[in-house]
């Protein structure tokens, strides 16, 4: 099987992302949407599809969909229609899913993604529509039976459908990450992929480079991690190329990705093709979205990721890459800005390096979100201030930071306690230098005879003698003078 994408093939990917909206209650009933409750404890008569019950649209879900549309500069439908998608399955109590078909809330929009080489690419969003989630079928742990949990039934979803604009698995992941960032910025989705709050279906096809028409696509269902998206697409691309190069044809079908085996497989074939018989849901009137609603939602839009990144680059002199990393989540941006505010804008680059470097490292090591950081932005700024005022070196600061993380003390307290304050007293430094020079006559002679690189040797010896606490800049200056002075004496 081909493991690398061949140069004469072009990959075409479109994603359908399902973002679970962060409403307190379901999209058409008053049941809670909280995750992890005992089965069927969050399903009321509407969710259970009892005879005679009717759906009522959750206004908050609609506002969230509008918010997403505004954030991607999409057309917002003035009149939007809910439709029924009819099929039988035990976890679909009504025998139909309420979704949107012809008139979704959100029309055409676009998302900008940054590729590995720094190039910016625009991916089209075809539409985004509201729909209800189904329940869950449980087949394991039950003898001769299947269980149905309807807690998830009726949970609001925003299905975000992209244009087939992505040309590699990496682009698809970059797009999905960007949407993930955006929905969390907008606070319309918690983005929790383990709990299924954010997942996607990938439509994948290949075509000969230069071909005008798309190849036949396969749809890979229910991918719930960025890594799976990337691997599943890579596998599927290689599979399709193999099929075509082997003289076969790609079949339009739905496939599932098996992460254990890293392969995609056709879903159990249905005896007949599904005909969902979409038609407008007569229980729900068309939703009228007026200017007042749009304006009130627009007023709640936060600074968006692209705007924040541009501001970071402009105001703090950061590179596009750094600005992008620091604006990837609202929490990271807020942490960074708080640290800069405490430290002073002139030292923003230093703060950026520390947030992206040491802080990020310890957060990853301990599996923490930045909001749960053991070192607050103020405390980090306190540490960085000591670098700025030359109390400690950057190297010592790393040790202090580790101690702050584990002991929860301030940088100043730790510097004091451990005696890490830099030696900046010139006479004290000169004393150490004198002792080192006196102890190394051979090296001194070689230096004098022109072996300049021995300067580093003397620096190392002095720092070693002083436990690394000598201010490096002062040391350089004084050492240079001492060595030169002795040379002059001779």
């Amino acid at each position, binding site marked *: 099987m081909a493991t690398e994408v061949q140069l004469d093939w072009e990959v075409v990917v479109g994603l359908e992302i399902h973002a679970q909206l962060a409403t307190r209650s379901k999209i058409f009933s008053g049941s809670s949407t909280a995750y992890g409750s005992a089965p069927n404890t969050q399903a009321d008569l509407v969710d259970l599809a009892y*005879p005679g019950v009717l759906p009522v649209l959750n206004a908050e879900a609609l506002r969230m969909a509008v918010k997403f549309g505004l954030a991607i500069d999409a057309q917002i439908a003035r009149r939007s229609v809910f439709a029924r998608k009819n099929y039988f399955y035990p976890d679909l109590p009504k025998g139909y899913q309420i979704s949107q078909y012809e008139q979704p809330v959100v029309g055409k929009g676009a998302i900008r993604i940054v590729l590995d080489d720094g190039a910016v690419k625009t991916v089209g969003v075809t539409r985004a529509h509201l729909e209800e989630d189904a329940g869950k079928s449980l087949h394991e742990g039950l003898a001769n039976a299947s269980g149905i949990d309807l807690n998830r039934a009726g949970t609001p979803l925003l299905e975000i459908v992209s244009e087939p604009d992505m040309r590699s698995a990496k682009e698809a992941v970059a797009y999905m990450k960007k949407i993930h960032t955006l929905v969390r910025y907008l606070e319309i989705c918690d983005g929790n992929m383990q709990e299924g709050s954010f997942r996607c279906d990938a439509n994948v096809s290949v075509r000969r480079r230069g071909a005008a028409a798309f190849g036949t696509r396969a749809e890979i269902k229910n991918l719930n991690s960025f890594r799976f998206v990337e691997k599943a697409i890579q596998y599927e691309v290689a599979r399709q190329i193999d099929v075509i190069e082997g003289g076969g044809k790609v079949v339009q079908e739905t496939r599932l990705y098996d992460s254990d085996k890293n392969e995609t497989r056709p879903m159990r074939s249905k005896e007949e093709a599904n005909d969902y018989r979409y038609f407008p849901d007569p229980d729900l009137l068309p939703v009228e979205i007026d200017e007042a609603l749009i304006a009130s939602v627009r007023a709640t839009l936060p600074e968006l990721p692209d705007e924040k990144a541009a501001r970071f680059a402009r105001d703090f002199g950061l590179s596009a890459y750094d600005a992008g990393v620091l604006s990837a989540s609202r929490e990271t941006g807020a942490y960074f800005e708080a640290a800069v505010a405490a430290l002073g804008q002139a030292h923003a680059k230093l703060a950026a390096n520390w947030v992206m470097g040491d802080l990020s490292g310890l957060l990853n090591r301990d599996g923490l979100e930045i909001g749960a950081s053991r070192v607050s932005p103020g405390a980090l700024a306190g540490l960085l201030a000591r670098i700025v005022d030359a109390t400690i070196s950057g190297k010592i600061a790393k040790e202090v930071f580790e101690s702050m993380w584990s002991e929860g003390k301030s940088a100043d307290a730790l510097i004091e306690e451990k005696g890490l304050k830099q030696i900046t007293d010139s006479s004290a430094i000169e004393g150490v230098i004198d002792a080192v020079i006196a102890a190394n006559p051979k090296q001194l002679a070689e230096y004098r005879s022109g072996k300049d690189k021995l300067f580093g040797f003397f620096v190392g010896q002095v720092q070693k003698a002083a436990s690394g606490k000598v201010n490096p800049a002062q040391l350089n200056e004084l050492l240079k003078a001492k060595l030169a002075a002795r040379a002059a004496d001779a």
Partner: protein
Amino acid sequence: MLHDLSIGELAERLAGRKVSSLELTRHFLDRIERLNPALNALVTVTADAALASAREADRRLAAGERGRLLGIPLIHKDIFCTDGVRTSCGSRMLEGFIAPYDATIVARLKAAGAVMLGKANMDEFAMGSSNETSFYGPVRNPWDPAKVPGGSSGGSAAASAARLAPYTTGTDTGGSIRQPAALTGVTGVKPTYGRVSRYGMIAFASSLDQAGVLAQSAADAAAVLEVMAGFDPKDSTSVDVPVPDYPALLEAPLEGLKIGLLREFFDGLEARNARLIRDALEVLTSLGAKTLEVSLPHLPMSVPTYYVVAPAECSSNLSRFDGVRYGYRCKEPVDLTDLYERSRGEGFGAEVKRRIMTGTYVLSAGYFDAYYLKAQKVRRLITDDFRAAFEQVDLLAGPTTPTPAFAIGAKVDDPVTMYLNDIYTIGANLAGLPGVSAPCGFVDGLPVGLQLIGPHFSEAKLLCAAHRFQRATDWHTRRPPGYE
């Protein structure tokens, strides 16, 4: 006799403590016990609960509370969910199903002190025009036991006509209140779509279904409708329009009221029926109304349009009856497909299956545009016809049905002939308009109904016209022999 009294008279006697709700309830329960076996109008009698409700109503009356329906019994069509009471919708699918909640109209009437005596038989899932599709057997017409009472609210109509309760509730998707009201000689009101909540009313065709009332007179119906009507946040299609005090508006003069005679409604109408309708219109003219002939050119397409739209919606609405969570489940299913196929195959009757299949077909890929979409376009044209007509006239008038009640078994094997029985009633459902059927005479000893249709939310005007007509005539006071 107590069952001869109007709702207004009953309320007066209850208020004056001349009769108690308990006595009233016992009187009607006694009639049900004696008369229902021959009619099969009720599928469930809730005697104990009724007596308890009556005692509660008597306590409220004793405490000085007054209400137009307080302490007065009724029978609900078995399509309305009633908390803790069997709700079968005329189907084997819901045999023994106990609803866990009250429909909004049931709750409203309960809160007003109405005393439920039981649940009325009906065509299965309200699909039928003769009450012959009920799993619980046909209902007999009190005027002639060999004849149908109409449908789908056939049990409600027969019970009202036989005075088994002062009034009954019904639902009307294509004529299911007005047609049986006409065929049993009672007054039936189908309100504007959205006037009465559909919450808790088991759906047949959501865009057409509307709950209403079958009563002894327009005045009685006005008192009931005033309680049933009103916005319900649980029904997104209910409309937030204030409910007029219908009983207070009944006596408005008819002078200057312009009534349009629907030309299309007289095409093919039997001569004796046509005569009765023209006589009724003369009565209205004598009361000051003016009549003129109007035409709704697309109205003849209402039956085929309806038999696309209604089955389409029902095919989806009835998908929830799958044998998984409640209702009928086949014995020992071998797998999921078997569970679905046999539970639905055994649980639904022939007419319901016919409509589910029709509806599935018209929504299918490749047929959707030709049937469903086309029907929606025609529906719009019919609605526009009515709108244009109401620019010329205040109300439209015509017969409710083409013929009086037909024999049980006469049409049951011929769906198209059966469907044509609703030819005059379906238009109002497609356009969401309110309609009333009021008794206007007899042909061969069987009642005939005059139908009035008005613009959206014109119930007060319709009830007023029907009431003034009833003050000038006595057709609505006639009793079927044996049910005096």
